[in-house]
């Protein structure tokens, strides 16, 4: 926290040099800052005063991440000119703890309640809440919502934040670390929690070296255009701070992409752009120079071409090709076929036909993409916010034509990912610039840039037909799902493969024909976003379930229960489920609340109708299943646990914690497997030079796959220790400094670790574990074992619709999830609550329109005030493959939410829209259409 040269501390002796600066206090200390008075206070705090706890999420007052107290009132530091701080008091997250570092009650409550996930909103949240708590010692829930309503969170669903603020008035709970062997299943605080609440956690934009050059990407204003770049010499002469302008010709191998055989996206476009926001040039120079240079001052000549705007245009006869080598603009398609479809529909007593249309959805993590690179001899080191350090390493190596061993990725704290940080953003650009210039080079995306340039959730057009027998059993289903994959492949193949496997829903269906296709358009690349297309497909299959149940006069929950996959059932891919198939148990858990909610809604509606008022309530249900890990592809994780000569235990984890809590989960699992308290562990996470590849943080795989590897690594180390001491399996381990004590019955053995030979680093013993879930490839009919484990869930939503305005308020959601085993129930709840917030956004408000909603005031995500009460019910049907029986939960939280909300709206007012989000004007139009008005 050293003040930068530009800032002069002004503690006791007045400094003449500071006379021209702006004087104010920061966290009680006097400062004088010499900087332009119009400079944003957020930037001053971060750059001039080194207080990077204040985050910048939008620079527009739309997210609240930069919230600070100005004379005791919360304001956005991105909207406050330095000049206005003159003579005033500024307080930041760094000032919330006591001088000795003791956390405030509020900070402790955030840790105790799991209120910080990725942590990017946490400083702003803490400051917003501090403003409230100083004025009001016993706030109501509504007071809390009003205080934090201007601060967005994308991870938590706000519930645990609100709980923490309400609890901050009480004495904090003690934070005891669980005893040896009892970490799994405990509501343990995050192992990396303290830096998230005291402002010291370092994110992509937080640790850029002072001497770094800055890189700004020049992006296409057109969805489809040819362009030429003129002579850049005059530009460089006019802007001495501009060191280099990079273009396509500078990139050694100018193509990247998720799949090894589809490197179709250029790092910098080569004369042709295929989407608005595509990277064209990279300006490298001093930060001032590259930020001051306006795009219209650059010698780029554009020739706009007609864009292909959507799936229909891309599939039209004679449509131009987005990618020359891809006829029909088809990236990939495939499906699952099983059973006798004609027979299924012949015997049907009810048939549901469903059409669903979903838009682009933006990840909207609070931390925009950021990072920096430096060249170290013939190697590159990239410090970056990412979900996937090992893929980054290999991709940068490929682009730079280096060996993967020549690239080191050092992940920073990741301020949210949700799939959006599984693709390349700043990585190849800063790598290229640092390599060529031999200087550190940094790049931080602006919010509009993050939204325009990076991947989105695939827009989907889904047609589904489901048939059921008179007994209420599903007989057949046909699903056709087309996805707008945008201009480049990204994760399009993953979505197109995963959806057909899931599109019939978590039900036994004898005849299945599902098809997924990814279609190129001149839109932003669609990539990975929590669920890989399954949330879109679930909207379709759950609409069909409601329709069939209604047609057959069967309760909607009961119909699902009757058809739920159970142990012994074969899935549509012919995989016989042998274990951990807890959907029926989830539905049973919902039953009591389901009945009560129906009765309450009926009473409410009867009264509303009698009184002629405008609110109607409804209850809906959504179910889902989700295959954990890659689809029919190897996705191994390797973890290591080292025991140092000084007695330090280190978990070397290549799994990146993007807020979901894998750092804590892995430590809990490894500690119990070894048989030592988890607070003995320190963590080395993500650094590709110091860890082993634990795959990407995606597909809900880290707990299941890397967690299993951590369990094996802990067990491996334990086995080595027991062997070394000739102890039996029941022996207990205790560490006291460098002395390891092993007690086996009455026998006690002590090892002086300092006396053992070093194996690696300072470690004298290293346990290693590797796990790759057993799957098989799918054949031409999509038959095989695509996943080793499936998560199941059912959620129930209660909504209230304003029939005159078309607005919908979600009152309550009960979420029953079969997670196998909750390693950390508090974190599992956090995943589910956060998933529900994103599912609510998908259902009711989120719609990304290229060129029109590239900010967080036109693109809306839920605020604290939009969230319902959430009750989570954990069903633990253990998976024998997973660590302690655990499966994944990252994506499942989101999948059933939108279907449940849409079903509840239908139940309330008898209208189901084919298109999400259900914006008020769309719902009102549908209501009026139904009335024939």
């Amino acid at each position, binding site marked *: 926290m050293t003040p930068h040269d530009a800032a002069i501390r002004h503690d006791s002796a007045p400094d003449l040099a500071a006379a021209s600066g702006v004087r104010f206090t920061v966290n009680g200390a006097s400062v004088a800052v010499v900087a332009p008075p119009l400079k944003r206070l957020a930037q001053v705090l971060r750059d001039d005063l080194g207080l990077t706890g204040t985050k910048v999420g939008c620079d527009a007052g739309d997210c609240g991440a930069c919230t600070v107290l100005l004379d005791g009132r919360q304001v956005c530091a991105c909207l406050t000119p330095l000049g206005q701080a003159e003579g005033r008091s500024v307080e930041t997250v760094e000032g919330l703890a006591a001088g000795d570092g003791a956390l405030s009650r509020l900070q402790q409550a955030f840790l105790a309640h799991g209120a910080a996930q990725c942590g990017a909103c946490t400083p702003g949240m803490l400051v917003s809440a501090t403003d409230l708590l100083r004025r009001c010692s016993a706030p109501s829930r509504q007071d809390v919502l009003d205080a934090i309503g201007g601060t967005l969170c994308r991870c938590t669903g706000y519930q645990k934040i609100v709980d923490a603020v309400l609890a901050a008035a009480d004495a904090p709970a003690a934070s005891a670390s669980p005893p040896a062997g009892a970490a799994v299943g405990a509501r343990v605080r995050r192992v990396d929690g303290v830096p998230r609440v005291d402002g010291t956690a370092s994110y992509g934009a937080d640790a850029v070296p002072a001497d770094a050059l800055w890189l700004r990407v020049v992006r296409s204003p057109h969805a489809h255009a040819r362009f030429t770049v003129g002579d850049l010499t005059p530009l460089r002469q006019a802007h001495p701070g501009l060191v280099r302008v990079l273009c396509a010709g500078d990139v050694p191998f100018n193509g990247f992409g998720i799949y090894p055989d589809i490197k179709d996206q250029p790092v910098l476009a080569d004369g042709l752009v295929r989407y608005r926001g595509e990277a064209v040039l990279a300006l490298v120079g001093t930060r001032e120079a590259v930020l001051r240079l306006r795009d219209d001052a650059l010698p780029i000549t554009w020739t706009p071409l007609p864009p292909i705007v959507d799936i229909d245009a891309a599939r039209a006869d004679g449509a131009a090709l987005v990618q020359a080598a891809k006829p029909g603009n088809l990236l990939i398609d495939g499906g699952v076929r099983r059973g006798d479809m004609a027979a299924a529909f012949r015997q049907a007593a009810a048939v549901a036909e469903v059409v669903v249309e979903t838009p682009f959805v933006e990840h909207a993590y609070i931390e925009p993409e950021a990072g920096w690179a430096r060249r170290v001899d013939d190697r590159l080191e990239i410090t970056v916010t990412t979900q996937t350090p090992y893929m980054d390493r290999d991709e940068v190596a490929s682009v730079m034509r280096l060996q993967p061993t020549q690239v080191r990725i050092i992940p920073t704290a990741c301020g949210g990912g949700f799939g959006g940080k599984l693709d390349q953003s700043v990585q190849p650009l800063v790598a290229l610039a640092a390599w060529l210039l031999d200087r550190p080079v940094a790049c931080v995306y602006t919010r509009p840039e993050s939204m325009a340039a990076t991947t989105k959730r695939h827009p989907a057009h889904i047609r589904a037909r489901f048939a059921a027998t008179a007994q209420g059993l599903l007989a057949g289903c046909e699903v056709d799902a087309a996805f707008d994959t945008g201009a480049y492949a990204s994760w399009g193949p993953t979505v197109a493969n995963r959806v057909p496997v899931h599109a019939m829903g978590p039900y036994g269906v004898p005849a299945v024909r599902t098809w997924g296709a990814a279609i190129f358009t001149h839109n932003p690349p669609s990539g990975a976003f929590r669920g890989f297309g399954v949330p879109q497909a679930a909207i379709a299959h759950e609409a069909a379930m409601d329709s069939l149940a209604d047609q057959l006069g069967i309760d909607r929950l009961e119909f699902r229960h009757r058809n739920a996959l159970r142990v012994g059932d074969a899935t549509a891919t012919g995989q016989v489920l042998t274990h951990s198939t807890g959907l029926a148990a989830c539905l049973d858990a919902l039953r009591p609340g389901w009945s009560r909610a129906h009765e309450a809604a009926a009473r409410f509606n009867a009264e509303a109708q009698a009184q002629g008022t405008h609110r109607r309530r409804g209850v809906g249900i959504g179910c889902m299943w989700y295959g954990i890990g890659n689809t029919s592809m190897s996705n191994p994780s390797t973890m290591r646990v080292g025991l140092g000569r000084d007695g330090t235990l280190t978990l070397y984890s290549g799994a990146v914690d993007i807020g979901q809590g894998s750092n804590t989960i892995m430590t809990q699992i490894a500690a119990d497997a070894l048989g030592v308290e988890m607070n003995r562990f320190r963590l080395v996470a993500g650094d590709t030079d110091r860890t082993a590849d634990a795959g990407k943080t995606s597909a809900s795989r880290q707990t299941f796959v890397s967690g299993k590897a951590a369990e094996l690594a802990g067990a491996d180390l334990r086995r080595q220790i027991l062997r070394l001491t000739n102890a039996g399996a029941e022996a207990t381990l205790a560490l006291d400094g460098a002395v390891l004590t092993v007690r086996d019955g009455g026998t006690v053995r002590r090892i002086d670790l300092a006396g053992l030979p070093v194996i690696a680093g300072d470690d004298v013993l290293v346990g290693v574990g590797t796990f790759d879930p057993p799957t098989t490839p799918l054949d031409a009919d999509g038959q095989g074992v695509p996943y080793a484990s499936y998560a199941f869930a059912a959620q129930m939503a209660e909504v209230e619709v304003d029939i005159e305005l078309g607005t919908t308020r979600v009152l309550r959601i009960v979420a029953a999830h079969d997670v196998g085993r909750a390693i950390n129930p508090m974190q599992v709840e956090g995943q589910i609550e956060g998933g529900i917030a994103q599912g609510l956004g998908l259902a009711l408000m989120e719609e990304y329109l290229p060129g029109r909603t590239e900010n967080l005031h036109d693109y809306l995500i839920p605020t604290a005030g939009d969230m319902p009460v959430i009750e989570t019910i954990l069903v633990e049907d253990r998976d024998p493959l997973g660590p302690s029986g655990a499966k994944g939960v990252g994506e499942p939280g989101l999948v059933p939410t939108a279907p449940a909300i849409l079903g509840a709206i239908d139940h309330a007012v008898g209208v189901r829209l084919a298109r999400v989000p259900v914006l008020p004007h769309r719902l009102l*139009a549908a209501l009026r259409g139904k009335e024939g008005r």
Partner: protein
Amino acid sequence: MGLYLRPQTVEEAVAALAAHAPAVLAGGTDFYPARVGRAPDDDVLDITAIDGLRGIDDDGDYWRIGAATTWRDIIDAPLPPLLDGLKLAAREIGGAQIQNAGTVAGNLCNASPAADGVPALLALDAQVILQSATAARVLPLAKFIIGNRRTALRTGEIMTAILVPKRSSRAVGDFLKLGARRYLVISIAMVAGVMDVDDDGRITSAAIAVGACAEVARRLPALEQALLGRRADGALQDIVAEPQFAPLQPIDDVRGSAAYRLAAAATLTRRLLVTLSRKAAGPHA
């Protein structure tokens, strides 16, 4: 690097305006969002250090709201029910951070069609004081905002205050906002109203203004006329009729369709009349 001027008197401010024609900055809540991704280098006149420009004063016939008064100041001020609509609007502007920094005058001068402060002040028959180096003039708010982000502010002029004329002690105000989410949301439509009644509970004056449904927030004179002389009760909502909304010219945008905005404006207006009449009848009923 632009000029940054932060004078302490109105005289200095208008002199600086005449000399440099800078952008006027107060809460910064519209200034910075228009400059995302770059370091602002505009010439700026920051009016937040000017003595006496912030606060709400009882000026006899008027409530005088200083130009640099924040929305938080409005929320916290003890004001009569007449200004309830303005207070409710203040609570609906952005989130708490924006309310703490954003100013009433900034909201008017920015002249967004969706400015949350405008309908309430229009319904209050607010006037604005515009000061130049040579003269001051008073304009009705309805004549000040003349289009989408266009005002009658002349070069060299600064808004120094907003005047809200007082009415009888029975006068009440109210405000309803419709957005696609709670907090931090740009309005799809909003309605503000002011109502005054006589001893018999009959309406002696009514003002209804609708925002985000035209380039500029609009009053609804036909409806206001129809309300006069009627008893302030729940039956008022029945007199709301489509022709009264003729002044509105809503557009289709990402937040809603034009047709929806019209329908929503009518619905909000009906609801507003119910709550206004309830409030107006309140202590006297």
